């Protein structure tokens, strides 16, 4: 096995171990609850018989180790247990919402990534110009603004004052694709505005970093036009940090949808998670939490692996 394969496998292994530790932590957390979970959920009026029955149903009458192993075994078979709130199968509950969340995140990413990278390249090309300064101010303020503020301002502007788009993004399986794109435009735009700044700044920084290299000076002295210097000479060498920041922002998009979904009443995983936390519906929280953690960890691994692969020097070092 070559060095690079070992490095990549090691990174993936570490991610899986982390995920296991996270699942264990969640599990132990429920275990360490000071009060009796069944008693707390059912309330004080519950008779001892109901509490005992509920404990049996939750499996709380079995040792913790067995319950954890059973839960993990279930997860591998796609069985996440039954929701405490409405007795529905968690996997069934999660599946359609997972699709919706991926749709929204994918929609936002499809627009945000090309726009951010293009803007970043332009900012590097015309640095210290008015355009660059404006982009800088935009980036700083978008980091400081809470997501729900951006979301509500967009609703006020484009759903109330100029009624172009719906303020609630309700979609279901029957919604046609184009219609779904239209209805989810405002939540997608909110997400785009939130992630674009970071990607743009990093792209700009990565390219400016490379521009200081001697081979760029060489290309300039040869008389290569400025845009060509950036596209042919600087961009390929600035790719690893750009890929990295894109992957991290994709991870953020999938995870950061929670607040946006709540604002727009979008039927996605984030809203399911928030509802489940409020109701303390543990099987649902565990399943959704595990999914979010897994996505976040795998995209971070992907970012690391891609930046190793796209850089010949890192490849050689490995």
């Amino acid at each position: 096995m070559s060095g690079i394969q070992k490095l990549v496998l090691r990174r993936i292994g570490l991610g899986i171990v982390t995920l296991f530790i996270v699942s264990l932590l969640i599990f132990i957390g429920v275990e360490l609850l000071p009060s009796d979970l069944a008693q707390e959920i059912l309330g004080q009026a519950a008779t001892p018989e109901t509490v005992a029955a509920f404990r049996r149903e939750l499996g709380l009458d079995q040792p913790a180790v067995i319950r954890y192993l059973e839960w993990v075994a279930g997860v591998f078979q796609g069985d996440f247990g039954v929701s405490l709130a409405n007795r529905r199968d968690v996997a069934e509950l999660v599946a359609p919402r997972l699709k919706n969340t991926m749709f929204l995140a994918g929609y936002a990413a499809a627009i945000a990534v090309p726009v951010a990278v293009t803007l970043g390249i332009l900012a590097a090309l015309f640095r210290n110009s008015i355009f660059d300064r404006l982009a800088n101010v935009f980036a700083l303020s978008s980091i400081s603004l809470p997501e729900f503020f951006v979301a509500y301002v967009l609703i006020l502007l484009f759903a109330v004052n100029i009624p172009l788009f719906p303020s609630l993004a309700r979609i279901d399986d029957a919604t046609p694709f184009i219609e779904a794109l239209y209805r989810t435009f405002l939540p997608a735009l909110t997400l785009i505005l939130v992630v674009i700044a970071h990607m743009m700044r990093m792209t700009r920084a990565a390219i400016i970093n490379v521009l200081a290299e001697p081979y760029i000076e060489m290309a300039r002295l040869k008389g290569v036009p400025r845009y060509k210097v950036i596209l042919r000479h600087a961009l390929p060498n600035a790719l690893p940090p750009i890929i990295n920041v894109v992957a991290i922002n994709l991870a953020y998009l999938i995870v950061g949808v929670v607040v946006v979904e709540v604002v727009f009443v979008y039927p996605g995983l984030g809203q399911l998670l928030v509802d489940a936390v409020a109701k303390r519906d543990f099987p649902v929280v565990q399943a959704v939490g595990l999914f979010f953690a897994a996505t976040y960890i795998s995209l971070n691994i992907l970012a690391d692996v891609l930046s190793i692969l796209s850089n010949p020097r890192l490849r050689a070092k490995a």
Partner: protein
Amino acid sequence: MLRFFKTTPPTALLGLFIILSVAIMGVFAPFLAPYGETEVVGAAYMPWDSVHLLGTDNLGRDMLSRVIYGARNTVGLALLTTAIAFTVGATLGIYAALKGGWVDQVVSRAVDVLMAVPPLILALMLLAIVGPSIPNMVLVIAVIYVAPVFRLARASSMNIVVLDFVQAARLRGEGNLWLISREILPNITSTLVAEFGLRFCFVFLFIAALSFLGLGIQPPTADWGSMVKENATLITFGDITPLIPAAAIAVLTIGINFVVDWMLHKASGLKD
């Protein structure tokens, strides 16, 4: 004093002004607010007029008074949370750098796991376990932010622990507490202070987001995040009142960022 105003960039002055006003608003809330925090003063959703400058909220409470009290609650809790995270994170970080060996390994790996999970998701999962309430929220967010503070404190004290004066103090037989507080801490204070400002912003936005989701600061306590949520329906009628607490959050964060930028710039010794 005049010199200070001349040499400080206008953005930093603006930032300082914002922070000071919010601090005054928070500390003197009971004297500044025209009505009580949870006092019902009229019908729900009354428009702006001379008696209720910003109208009333969904339960008929004075909006302006709640925004003023919100400064106390939201910002106060964010400060408390950041302070806890810094005390624990910095102490652990310096201690790990000082001791090395298995202590360092165990804490560092634990921090790796904490940082591998997205903060909001981790917070939601932990809140599901302990139940949403103010003390629980403060603790959960503090635990999450111990991780980055630990990393920073450990990394910056790594450079200090190898220096001669630390060795000398060790050989003198000083205890860990002395080494941490008197030998290492003074040398990494400037790094930690700038980081405190940035982390405070994150914690503040985090608390606002959790409260907005209904899982942070609980009613009837006035807080900028949940106020947006409670009155959000007004936006569909073109009323901007619910955006005021949200804007307050944004303005304070931008103000702090300005000041932190200026402090970092000064600390780095760069000349314009």
